């Protein structure tokens, strides 16, 4: 592997990492302002750096002020806590979520001269399995955070979190099997390419048209996996203070928060890739727009690539917004309801979805 290839790979990895981190930070602001909008409040409006900013720059202020505040806070390790594991847990929570995006394609191919750059960090033929593997490791941050803090609330939160994440992982995996059967591959880039044509020349052949139920199950399980309202029982402020991260402060607590936001970005990214045509723009092909009716608008290659990346980003962002909307609309479930939903409704539904998909594939060839 030449130096250029290594450089390109590095740039791609950095770009994806920054995309997830930036989206998470923006989501943090959107969440604060969005919740305010929904609840008829004003929301975050006090950030004014050192009091010397002549005007409020809105979200930029908050984006800088929030991390600064968290960075400068005291880091408290409770008495009797397992110091090493207490330190390790936030990293275990963030790391798997951030590396998940490596397998998600954010564009087709960028051709510069003779070099073809795949707009995907890791071109894996088992992409979906990689994603599932990494997301299954995310549970350790919760478990370790809950156990190492030497606090009952933390432990209860950790136990709730791990039980919930394992339960919904099963429904999520089974919902994905329907998608895998439809497209016949585990490769996320191949799935993205397979969504490029149109039904009757007008309806984009996105995954959601083949797998509407699969999408619903995936989204619910995904929200449950990211431990957000209505599934935020592991946090459960009303009875567990803050659940598994009760005993965390400053940047470590921020790491847990970041992992939750990054997880919703990952869920949105996966849902986009599998169900909403990934980076596909309707009617946009490799040489330009082919509108129904035969009109063709040729476009330069670079513009098409930019539009694909933009399309992917916008879809991810819209799905993130939808998750925030859900979060501030629904009340929290009771814990037994969470378990019932996962095991008694989503799991059988996902199995039925698999069966119907299989029958449809056999009948329709």
């Amino acid at each position, binding site marked *: 592997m030449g130096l250029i290839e290594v450089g390109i790979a590095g740039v791609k990895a950095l770009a994806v990492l920054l995309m997830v981190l930036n989206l998470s930070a923006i989501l943090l602001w959107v969440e604060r302002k969005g919740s305010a909008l929904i609840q008829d409040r004003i929301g975050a409006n006090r950030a004014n750096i050192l009091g010397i900013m002549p005007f409020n720059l809105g979200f930029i202020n908050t984006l800088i002020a929030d991390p600064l505040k968290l960075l400068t806070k005291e880091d408290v390790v409770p008495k009797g806590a397992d110091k090493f594991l207490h330190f390790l847990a936030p990293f275990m929570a963030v790391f798997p979520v951030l590396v998940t995006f490596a397998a998600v394609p954010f564009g087709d191919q960028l051709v510069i001269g003779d070099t073809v750059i795949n707009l995907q960090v890791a071109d894996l*033929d*088992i992409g979906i399995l*990689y994603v599932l*593997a990494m997301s*299954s*490791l995310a549970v*350790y941050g919760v478990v*370790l955070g809950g156990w190492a803090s030497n606090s009952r609330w933390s432990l209860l939160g950790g*136990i709730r979190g*791990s039980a919930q994440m394992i339960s919904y992982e099963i429904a999520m995996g089974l919902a994905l099997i329907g998608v895998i059967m439809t497209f016949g591959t585990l490769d996320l880039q191949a799935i993205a390419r397979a969504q490029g044509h149109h039904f009757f020349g007008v309806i984009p052949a996105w995954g959601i048209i083949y797998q509407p139920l699969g999408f619903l199950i995936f989204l619910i399980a995904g929200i449950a996996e990211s431990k957000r309202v209505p599934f935020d029982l592991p946090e459960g402020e009303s009875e567990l203070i803050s659940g598994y991260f009760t005993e965390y402060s400053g940047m470590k607590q921020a790491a847990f928060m970041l992992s939750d936001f990054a997880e919703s970005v990952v869920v949105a990214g996966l849902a986009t890739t599998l169900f909403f045509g990934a980076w596909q723009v309707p009617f946009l092909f490799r040489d330009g727009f082919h509108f129904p009716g035969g009109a063709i608008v040729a476009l330069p290659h670079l513009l098409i690539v930019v539009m694909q990346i933009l399309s992917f980003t916008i879809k991810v962002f819209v799905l993130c917004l939808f998750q925030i909307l859900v979060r501030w609309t629904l009340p929290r479930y009771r814990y037994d309801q969470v378990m019932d939903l996962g095991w008694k409704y989503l799991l059988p539904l996902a199995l039925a979805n698999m069966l119907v998909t299989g029958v449809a594939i056999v009948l329709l060839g």
Partner: protein
Amino acid sequence: MGTILFLVLAVLTIAAALGVILHPNPVKSALFLIVTLFLLAVVFVLLEAHMIAALQIIVYAGAIMVLFLFVIMLLNLQIDDPDRGRRQVVLRGLAWLGGIILAVELALLVRGGPAGNPAAAPAGYGGALAVAQSLYTDFLLPFELTSILLLVAVVGAVVLAQKQRRPTIS
């Protein structure tokens, strides 16, 4: 490059495996086991067996070990068993016996196994397609039997976990 990577991984894996049996704290032991399983998955990736690597992490590191940790954390092991001393001697003996048998089996396997060159395997032999093809053709019967076994285990677990319906004393 590949050999150096493998050697580093091998040393780390063995160190983590030693951690499993030598660490006095059961929770830490379980964590070492997770590290061992994760590193083994990386070894599989080095061997181009991507499918097995992913499954190793999903099934062992990501699901089974979580339950292990769960149980260990919940049980909060007590050490005030009067029979503990005598039992431990027996257990140690059994563990040594099992370990020696395993070591002998491994040695025999390595000596009697195919003098294989792993690099000679066909391209893509570790991918999803190749694994699925051999599972659903050559190994269909063992595969289905295993799934029946697992199904029975699931049913058994459900039966065991059911709340006991005792007659209520009024």
